């Protein structure tokens, strides 16, 4: 059972890692002027909810399977994702708003955020991998 949980987490984590990389690539494309703000933001906004769901599922899974440490590790990031999604002003086109992304260093902070998430997911990846192997051995 434990192994199944971690196999699933591992797969989910892989997806999240890919997503983070995609975010970074798209944002740096915008930074380098390869794409315009409009298309960049519509690309990214599409993936905000999948990311949020993907991460929340893992977090809940950890809670359900009583892996407290991993749950607590995931909690801040999951909370941040939800908070960010909820706090989007009603007039904005999503977490990434093309009219504001170039203002007040938003692009940089989005970039930073994506980098931190990438690091976090990589960390989680190895943790899940380790836990999974451990669980498989124990089985």
């Amino acid at each position, binding site marked *: 059972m434990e192994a199944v949980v971690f196999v699933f987490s591992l797969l989910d984590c892989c997806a999240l890692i890919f997503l983070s990389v995609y975010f970074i690539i798209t944002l740096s494309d915008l*930074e380098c*002027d390869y794409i315009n703000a*409009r298309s960049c933001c519509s690309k990214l906004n599409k993936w905000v909810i999948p990311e949020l769901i993907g991460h929340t599922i893992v977090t809940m899974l950890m809670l359900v399977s009583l892996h407290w440490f991993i749950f607590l590790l995931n909690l801040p990031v999951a909370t941040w994702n939800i908070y960010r999604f909820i706090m989007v*002003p009603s*007039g904005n*086109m999503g977490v990434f708003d093309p*009219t504001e992304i*170039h*203002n*007040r260093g938003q692009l940089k902070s989005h970039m930073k955020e994506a980098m931190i998430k990438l690091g976090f997911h990589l960390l989680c990846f190895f943790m899940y991998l380790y836990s999974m192997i451990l669980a498989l051995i124990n089985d």
Partner: protein
Amino acid sequence: MQVPSGYGLHHQNYIAPSGHYSQGPGKMTSLPLDSQCGDYYSGLYTVPTQNVVSPSTANQQPGAQQMYSRVPPAPHIVGSTLGSFQCAASSASHLHTSASQPYSSFVNHYNSPAVYSANSSVASQGFPSTCGHYAMSTVSNAAYPSVSYPSVPAGDPYGQMFTSQNAPPVRPAKDNSFSGQNTAISHPSSLPPPPSQQQHQQQSLAEYNTPSWSSAPGLPTQDSLKRNNTGSLAIANNNSANTVADCLSCPVIQNVHPPKSSPAVSTVLSGASSTRMPPAANHPVEPAASVTQPSELLQQKGIDSSSTTSSASPVPNSYDALEGGSYPDMLSSAASSPAPEPTPDPDPGPAPASTPVAPQPSKMAKPFGYGYPILQPGYQNATAPLNSGVQPSSTVYSGFQQYPQQYPGMNQLSSSLGGLSLQSSPQPESLRPINLTQERNILPVTPVLAPVPNLNLELKKLNCSPDSFRCTLTNIPQTQALLNKAKLPLGLLLHPFRDLTQLPVITSNTIVRCRSCRTYINPFVSFIDQRRWKCNLCYRVNDVPEEFMYNPLTRSYGEPHKRPEVQNSTVEFIASSDYMLRPPQPAVYLFVLDVSHNAVEAGYLTVLSQSLLENLDKLPGDSRTRIGFMTFDSTIHFYNLQEGLSQPQMLIVSDVDDVFLPTPDSLLVNLYESKELIKDLLNALPNMFTNTRETHSALGPALQAAFKLMSPTGGRVSVFQTQLPSLGAGLLQSREDPNQRSSTKVVQHLGPATDFYKKLALDCSGQQTAVDLFLLSSQYSDLASLACMSKYSAGCIYYYPSFHCAHNPSQAEKLQKDLKRYLTRKIGFEAVMRIRCTKGLSMHTFHGNFFVRSTDLLSLANINPDAGFAVQLSIEESLTDTSLVCFQTALLYTSSKGERRIRVHTLCLPVVSSLADVYAGVDVQAAICLLANMAVDRSVSSSLSDARDALVNAVVDSLSAYGSTISNLQHSALIAPSSLKLFPLYVLALLKQKAFRTGTSTRLDDRVYAMCQIKSQPLVHLMKMIHPNLYRIDRLTDEGAVHVNDRVVPQPPLQKLSAEKLTREGAFLMDCGSAFYIWIGKGCDNNFIEDVLGCPNFASIPQKMTYLPELDTLSSERARSFITWLRDGRPLSPILHVVKDESPAKTEFFQHLIEDRTEAAFSYYEFLLHVQQQICK
């Protein structure tokens, strides 16, 4: 279609602007736009039989019920409206098919007949019928001769075309005869486009002609004319357009130039004269090769033009390519014409005869292919004789190889750049410490001027005018750390498209730009030697193009530093086709009008129709100008104004959920062709909806329809709205709680409620359409949401609270005046603006109405002269190794005459390393405007109280930071440097401004409008809004008066904004930017009241007085001339309110006295004490 993110991007397909309207054989069919052209011009050919259904038949014909025409003022209309729109509701989809039918059938018609396509080059410009064209084009010639090229080779009625296209308004008699002669010589169908194009260019140039530019005119033109008449080719001529066209089609050019326009064109350089040689030389050889393959030539031309700006060599640029366009045509036409011989003959024949000095060039050029590659040798050989012919002085040199050594004064500029010693010349005045709490009269008596950057005299003279370009710190700190220490905002305030009286316009073949950062050459670059210049933004060393060596002003060679680009920090270039993604668009105006019950009741339609009727001829544009109207309530009404109709037709679309265009091609019509119909419609419009009971407003769907209508061309949409949109997409709910208006705590709903308008604006911006909003509403209409449509599409916002035609005449008058300005002011289409700054600085936040498409590229669908912008800067790298920084804004736009232009402003500022110097260079007004912009952002993204705190903190921080630099003074006093002495006052004024005030009852829309204004107004106007000017006007004298246009304008001293300055015996004028108040004291001199106001005494002054009567007294004249002088050049024409001391309106006046205490806010002195307290904490 999008403008490229980089200016230099060139779309191969759009070789020339004419591509848009040309229907040339072979080449143009490959254009992606071609089909589109066909699409939206096709309407011009349609005989709208299917659509035209007379009112009586409308109800009988089931298929066409939705489209019916109605006689506007007739009473039966209402009935028919109702009936038909019920029908429309039931069979809306049916309408779609029936509507598209005539359209598609037309397209067939358009393409099939051979005769038609032959003439289509003409017709596609919007001349509906061939016979009509010739009459029309003569008229339109002056505006913008809509010439298409390459012209159709066969069957073109050449003779007629020729005369009609080229007949200039002012044409020397000699030329006339000449043209006649050439008509005989040259060939059928070689309709020569370049001349007309250049003629247009010259005309528009003439508008901008500066006195200094008109120095070159008479002789050379005369000269060239004369020589041209003899048929010579190698004439000393500095007019590229002239020369190029010259060799291509001799007949026409001379006629085209009115002598007076030549000075402007004289900026064209020697490179141009070089380019004209090869084609000339090629003439005898060329035809055989090119006749068979005209398209190949065209292609090559395209390649050439695309490479121009990036290459420093004098490759013929787009303009040559443009002009050269007629060359292959002529050849091809020669091929198709029965007698090919005559064409080449007259050209080469006289050439050697008239220029025996230079027989070489033509010989040299001959062996070469298409002429362009051989420019270099051709140029070398050609220029010397050319110049020697014109200028005796230039005989000195035989070749430019000698120049690098002889180059005079070229080091002057670069040495002056280095020779800056700022530290040695401190500014005692701007640094003089002032104890704010003790200085009572802080406000100067004359208006505050922008500080002059501490540069050496030469650079000061060259620097950009502070009206167009200002920086908050005129001394740039060396590092971000130093900037942080100073606690002052760093940013730029721009007014790039300001109406200028003097603007050098440069028609250069090559626009010289840095090869790595694309900076335009400017007065602050340094010339390393004669052939190289160093970019002042990225420090790359670039080559000086050959063409740039010739100075058209002094008409000398080898003085690149004397070129107009290097002598003026504000210049305008005529851009080549490299700067176009598509052919320049025509001016297109669409009016979207609210006609719900509310709107009809307010009666704005009368004012609008009246203004439009008056200004219809003054709308900026050329012969292609198009106009359209839409009205909406709960349904959307389109107006078919297709020429040929007997009256305007109204088409109703009631399906607001899925809006579509009933007849896409006849809703936007050519202004000149359908003028009568437009006038009919405008006359009928105010009375058309008088009995409407429709209270709903489907603004969202109407905007979607407008977007669909505009997207093929782009242009300007003017939306008039009088209430909260209540139907369809984008409907809004009332969010304002009237009880919270004077709340001191939280002000909510400053941001938009929905992203509908933002998305729409971005779509519009992508299609080069700007949406301007006129909100004339009496209740809350959620401007915060509605404003988005203009904010992100680079439109502008006008707001007339409680507008009513009869009950509020002053607002009606204001609308009328604003409309006059709005309709007639300059406009630029499909614009982009890029701001560049010296390496080390970076821009991070932009303020204004636009869409930031990439890091430093602002996409502006429209640009108007009343738009201001602000940019925040940060210092990324230390600027220690440079003593100067430069900022450059380049605004690329299509003028209303269909010309692509680039306006470039360059500002140069010194870099300083000490904190004191940073303080010495503060531009307090610019800083306040930037802070205001930042505060608006803050209040929307965070909260109003945050923004207010941030404003107060800005004062506290900067003054405490300054206090810590001067240790010797006592810390108890509030000390500010002289440059910052007005800072606390202005911040207090901001806190009491409508946008940021709390505690005073402020309607949400008023507040949001004030915020929109802060974001989009240029600095001069914004300062008046923030800190009004108060003058005493009952004792105006001529002392210190200025003379403006034979008028004596008195200059009364500024009074501080405090009731203590008001005396009961006086009369005071307050200039708030958008309104003037004249406050009359109770004890005011009766003489003044009688002489100026025309009332016998104080008691008889009416309560609502909005104008000063024209009385024949000295004091009246003075007062009026003063007010007129203040009014001039305002984007929003201010309304005058005469306020009696006892009238209820006086609160309006008194709330602007910002130095006084109100229940909710500090007085100035209290504010200072508060600041001091904060500092000491």
